[in-house]
């Protein structure tokens, strides 16, 4: 479903992704973790071509990421939740969610609205549907961002720390939603440090450091017996 | 000659120096403008034993400046008009005629019917548009098409239309065409002299003060009498007949 081969990405002179290769099958759920600045956000931004990669090959659902003619298809295949939400401030919560379905003409206005209300209800925020993003607390904004991405009915979801602004209760609920999506067969890449979630849902954990993938392992193996020193050091902090 | 009070410490005059030969910058580097009006002002000042000074500005600034006392008089190719006398006083010093000009070699207009349907460029804010409308009324009364009148802010803009070929004729003052002929002979020809409905000579405009105005009137009379005005007229290639009726 998703395949990265020797992907490199530079910001000016800073080498943010170094020879990253990763294969993700249809329906697979992958958690990416690693220290701050290790390139996790950059990686998933490259997958839906928000950042062009400098070399290597990325394929998504058979499409070549980076090929000009497929760029819209790529992005409609992959829904994304940003680390800092990026809601549209001039639109209400509901409008944020129905904008894409309406414009891409996939569904009727009526259906788009119904679907948006469903997803907003699922993340417990339907009662705020008429508010503007600036009126919402951090956690509320994050949930709207998740609903907005789901409304595109993507085949793949890219989550960039989707629970960072949430309280534990809401984390639980959002992870439940993600679990459901997972069980419905959605392919997912999720940058998160919620080890609980990783353990429960992830098929594999990808550990990154300094722009490189250091280790890929099933969660049980990764948490119990990390192979690399770097991952061991990282994990030793979690019980902190 | 008793000098008017406003000229006690010098005679300052507001002009828009873009109307040769009445007033213009003879050389781009000159400090003071030159022209008929400049000479007239100097002659008046000489009569009163003071110096004349000139303030150049856009036409729209002339009247507010006179009103505000920034200068003592406006002598800037402005003709006497009945409706202007509501706000200011005027003293005539040179008669003038309005003419139609066209490119060199254009045939003279002997009958106004020849003007029917032609485009005529005129300077706005002058008496020209009004004159042209009277002419149009005559044309229409005689069953001809009226002329097409286009108004431009400066005389030079209007004449440009002649050069561009958009207008067939331009309305201007006999003084101006005399000057052009002197400078650059053979560009334009006077083809028609507009019939004058009223006596509309170039005049000195003053603030509304009848006593002071009378003194200026006296001064003009004196300049006619001692031949100074005639000298100026000859200097600028104008016709002595333009002094008919001045100083009376």
């Amino acid at each position: 479903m998703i395949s990265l081969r020797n992907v490199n990405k530079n910001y000016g002179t800073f080498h943010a992704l170094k020879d990253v290769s990763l294969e993700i099958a249809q329906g697979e759920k992958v958690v990416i973790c690693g220290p701050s600045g290790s390139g996790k956000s950059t990686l998933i931004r490259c997958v839906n071509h928000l950042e062009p990669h400098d070399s290597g090959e990325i394929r998504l659902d058979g499409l070549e990421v980076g090929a000009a003619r497929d760029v819209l298809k790529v992005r409609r295949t992959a829904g994304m939740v940003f680390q800092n939400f990026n809601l549209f401030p001039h639109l209400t919560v509901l409008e944020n969610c129905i904008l894409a379905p309406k414009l891409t003409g996939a569904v009727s206005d009526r259906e788009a609205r119904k679907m948006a209300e469903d997803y907003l209800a699922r993340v417990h925020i339907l009662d705020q549907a008429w508010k503007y993003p600036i009126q919402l607390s951090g956690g509320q904004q994050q949930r709207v961002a998740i609903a907005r991405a789901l409304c595109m009915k993507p085949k793949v979801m890219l989550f960039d720390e989707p629970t960072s602004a949430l309280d534990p209760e809401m984390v639980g609920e959002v992870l439940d939603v993600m679990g459901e999506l997972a069980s419905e067969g959605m392919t997912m890449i999720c940058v998160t440090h919620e080890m609980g979630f990783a353990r429960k849902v992830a098929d594999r954990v990808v550990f990154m450091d300094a722009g490189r993938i250091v280790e890929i392992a099933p969660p049980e193996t990764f948490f119990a017996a990390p192979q690399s020193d770097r991952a061991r050091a990282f994990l030793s902090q979690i019980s902190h | 000659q008793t000098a008017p009070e406003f000229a006690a410490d010098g005679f300052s005059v507001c002009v828009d120096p873009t109307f040769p030969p009445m007033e213009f910058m003879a050389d781009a580097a000159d400090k003071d403008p030159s022209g008929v009006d400049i000479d007239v002002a100097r002659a008046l000042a000489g009569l009163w034993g003071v110096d004349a000074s000139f303030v150049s500005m856009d036409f729209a600034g002339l009247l507010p400046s006179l009103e505000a006392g920034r200068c003592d008089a406006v002598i800037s190719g402005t003709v006497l008009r009945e409706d202007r006398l509501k706000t200011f006083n005027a003293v005539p010093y040179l008669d003038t005629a309005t003419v139609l000009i066209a490119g060199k070699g254009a045939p003279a207009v002997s009958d106004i019917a020849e003007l029917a349907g032609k485009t005529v460029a005129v300077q706005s804010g002058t008496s020209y548009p009004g004159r042209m409308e009277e002419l149009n009324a005559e044309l229409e009364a005689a069953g001809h098409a009226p002329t097409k009148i286009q108004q431009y802010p400066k005389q030079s803009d209007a004449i440009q239309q002649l050069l561009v070929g958009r207008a067939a004729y331009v309305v201007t003052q006999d003084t101006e065409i005399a000057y052009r002929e002197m400078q650059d002979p053979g560009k334009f020809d006077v083809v028609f002299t507009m019939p004058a409905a009223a006596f509309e000579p170039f005049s000195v405009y003053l603030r509304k003060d009848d006593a002071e105005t009378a003194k200026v009137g006296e001064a003009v009379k004196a300049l006619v009498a001692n031949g100074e005005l005639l000298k100026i007229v000859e200097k600028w290639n104008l016709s002595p007949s333009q002094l008919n009726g001045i100083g009376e």
Partner: protein
Amino acid sequence: MSFDPSTFWEALFSWPFLRGALLTLGLTIAAHLTAILIALPLAVVLNGPPSVLRKLITAYVGFFRAVPTLLQLLFVWNALPQIFPIFREEWFTPFLAAWIALSLNESAYQVEINRSALSAVDGGQMAAGQAIGLKKSHIYRYIMLPQALRVALPPTMNEFITLLKLTSLASIISLQELMTVTQINVARTFQFSEYYAVALTWYLVMVYSLMGLQKLVERRFRWSSRTEAAALAETRRSRGW
């Protein structure tokens, strides 16, 4: 200073002044709308990555801002007919010529305003629009421009008012808008305070109406304020916009 109220009142609603004011307003609206239409795509290009096109647009902007409007008017009115005989014909009225010249002139200024407003929109917005799979045209139409409008509106209104006054330059190609009518009357009668007061009155009416309109539009931007967004949300909910 003398002031004759009867002259003032008579002129205020006289046909030449009304016609002048309408001409001023009409020409300004026509030219400004055209300018905005020209400027929008150019601003979008300027907001993008460097390219040859961007260089060309920069040159365009510089040129049309540098050339005095007067000359642009004269060029369109006097030189164009010499180059293309088609412009010599009847239909090519001073209004049309002024419209063309002022639109081109104003578009250069408007490009800069739109460029700056677009650059003020948070970078994440473009990314978010891309991420939900919108076409570039949709991203600009529904995400970037509505947000940029908030920033662009006040300087755009500045330009509109400047243009309102600038139309008076069109007197050079024999268009008689408000200021020209005024100056013709001043030159005719020398009653400057009365006639300038008429022009002033009309300008004040136009500018203040415009500012009222602007304020109404700005109410739609309250989503950007922590303290006022609630009011906007409430209005929208109750009206079901």
